[in-house]
């Protein structure tokens, strides 16, 4: 499985904030995505409102999850009826072994890949390379990332942090092409290089945006055409799908194909949708002779098991929560340390990987709620983050993962807040402690508390008022001759 580096969140996010080039790219891209989505959602497109579509989609996905064993069985039967093979992998290692076995059995030398987040989870490229099989990413962004030896920066725009100059030097190094500033030219270089790979590859690996239970149809959504190429040119097609990708009926696709591109790129529909449910028919002119669908768990069961977290599996990976998140807009995707980033990454990474390693992620949100508002399947991300924080703080996962300072603070706060007298006492102590640092009603530096010193590095902290509001209130009422509980004495 791909390495989980989420423990580095704080350090990595700091690095991202200081990376000027990255900051520039983030600003540019976010504006583009946010604007495009807003434009299309506000424009007229049919009889059903956006809100109604979201509600319906959320209900369909949730119901599918509640009956997931039934629908997995249904897909299995449908695909096998179509002449395809279906596999069930508990984790990344099993899934990799299945892919490797298919490849070896067929003497595969080159594999072309259409974008698949599950394959990123699995780290399948690494496994193939180790066995002397060449994996080639064909989504332009993924291809660039692969040449650079990096991981995707964004679910739908993996290389958005790369400039044209960087892409040009990567191509110079790997494809021996001439340097250019022309993006169109760079696309042509990539196209030509990848055409050779398409012709040479014996096996294509794709992800799945949706898997239709009743027909066994895998739906792929792409703009470049690499999804079509991967499912047309090689002799073998392998689909890697998270087990939550199912929708029950083929007619459900109409709804989801409206929601996904609008939320992701602000398009009415992507340039290509590929629907594939098995190998080519004998009379077909071309297309793969073998079709393999691999369902992958790899930690999803931890989400499914928890009734609160279950709804996270409704996610259709549109990336809208990333694009609209004030935190993601500032730090980008790499700091989250695993395959999924942004708000949904903060939600799924801890349960899918390792709660202790990823314990910072549930806290990496201001809980501003924008993610929940833009989600096409209405995942209540702030609620799920709060649920995870509860697990982190109160050791629901077997270990406490907060800092001693946070626990001390909350303990003290807890003591004070159940009793006004204790609160006033603590407040007086606070006045005493902060007085030496206060200048004109502000505290500029609080050296003794590591938790608070982060705040005062960039912001003043209000010094405690000399008198509490309750005391002021008592004094004012005494003047007005009013009873403290507000009932005026007439």
């Amino acid at each position, binding site marked *: 499985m791909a390495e989980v580096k989420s423990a580095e969140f704080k350090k990595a996010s700091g690095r991202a904030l200081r990376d000027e080039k990255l900051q520039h790219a983030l600003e540019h891209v976010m504006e583009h995505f946010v604007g495009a989505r807003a434009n299309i959602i506000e424009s007229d497109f049919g009889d059903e409102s956006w809100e109604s579509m979201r509600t319906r989609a959320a209900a369909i996905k949730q119901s599918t999850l509640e009956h997931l064993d039934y629908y997995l069985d249904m897909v299995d039967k449908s695909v096998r009826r179509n002449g395809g093979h279906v596999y069930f992998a508990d984790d990344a290692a099993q899934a990799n072994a299945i892919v490797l076995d298919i490849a070896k059995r067929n003497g595969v030398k080159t594999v072309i890949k259409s974008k698949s987040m599950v394959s990123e989870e699995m780290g399948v490229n690494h496994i193939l390379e180790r066995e002397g099989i060449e994996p080639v990413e064909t989504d332009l962004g993924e291809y660039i990332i692969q040449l650079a030896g990096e991981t995707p920066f964004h679910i739908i725009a993996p290389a958005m942090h790369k400039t044209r100059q960087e892409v040009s030097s990567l191509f110079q190094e790997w494809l021996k092409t001439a340097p250019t500033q022309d993006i169109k030219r760079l696309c042509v270089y990539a196209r030509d290089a990848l055409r050779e790979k398409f012709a040479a590859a014996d096996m294509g690996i794709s992800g799945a945006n949706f898997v239709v239970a009743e027909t066994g149809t895998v739906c792929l959504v792409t703009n470049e055409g690499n999804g079509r190429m991967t499912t047309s040119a090689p002799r073998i097609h392998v689909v890697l799908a998270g087990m939550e990708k199912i929708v029950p009926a083929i007619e459900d696709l109409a709804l989801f194909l409206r929601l996904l591109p609008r939320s992701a790129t602000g398009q009415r529909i992507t340039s290509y949708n590929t629907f594939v449910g098995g190998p080519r028919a004998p009379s077909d002119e071309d297309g793969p002779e073998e079709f393999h669908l691999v369902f992958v768990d790899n930690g999803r069961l931890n989400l499914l098991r928890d009734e609160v977290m279950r709804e996270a599996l409704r996610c259709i990976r549109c990336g809208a929560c990333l694009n609209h998140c004030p935190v993601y807009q*500032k730090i980008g995707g790499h700091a989250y340390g695993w395959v999924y980033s942004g708000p949904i990454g903060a939600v799924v990474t801890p349960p899918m990987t390792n709660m202790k390693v990823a314990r910072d992620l549930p806290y990496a949100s*201001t809980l501003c709620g924008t993610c929940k508002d833009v989600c096409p399947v209405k995942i209540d991300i702030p609620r799920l983050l709060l649920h995870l924080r509860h697990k982190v703080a109160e050791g629901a996962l077997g270990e406490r993962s907060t800092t001693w300072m946070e626990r001390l603070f909350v303990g003290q706060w807890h003591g004070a807040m159940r009793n006004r007298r204790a609160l006033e006492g603590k407040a007086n102590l606070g006045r005493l402690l902060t007085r030496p640092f206060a200048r004109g009603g502000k505290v500029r530096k609080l050296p003794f508390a590591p938790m608070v010193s982060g705040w005062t590095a960039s912001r003043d902290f209000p010094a405690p008022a000399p008198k509490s509001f309750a005391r002021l209130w008592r004094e004012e009422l005494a003047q007005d001759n009013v009873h403290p509980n507000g009932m005026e004495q007439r």
Partner: protein
Amino acid sequence: MKVLRRLGVDVGFPEDQTCCGQIAFNGGFRSHAADVAKHFLDVFENEEQVVVPSGSCASMIKVYYRELFEDDPETLERAQAVGEKTRELSDYIVNVVGTSDVGAASEGLVTYHDACHLLRELRIKEAPRDLIGGVRGIELQEMEDSNACCGFGGLFSVKFPEISTAILDEKLKNIAESGAGAVVANDCGCLMHIRGAMERRGMNVRAMHIAELLAEDGTDG
């Protein structure tokens, strides 16, 4: 208090009150939060109406108590009852008292920051703007992305101060570009955050709670 009393509201301040518990709840310390929230219910449940001056406190009481007490049906019922009679200050004045003119007067250009919970949990957007519009001598100048988060997020601002400040920078930029002399918000957290940074940087803009603006009568502004 001054504003509400000016409107003829019979207002009290139960002295045993402390906090709604959101700090602990957002930190994940739910049992601590529940204790404090119960104290809140003890103090307020016999009041006719509870008016809260901060959007995030109001949403804690109205929205998140449901979650906090989901396994405690008895308290849940009490929490729902208190939640129903809890209103955020601007919402209370405009939609319960029924006025957007509290007789306040001041002068200048102010801009308004939509606090996240007020806007996205409670869906309160117009009431504060109506109230600002009702202050004589004040003009509301909308800033760019007024609905964007200021980066406070409670615990977030101390756990990840660098990210928090970077988000705040955008907000400060938009406030400055609006040309307003003051930024008004209905959330004590956002205000502490915004005011803290503006003071540190010596920005010549006031950060005001809406109650502060509404309390002005033209003599002290």
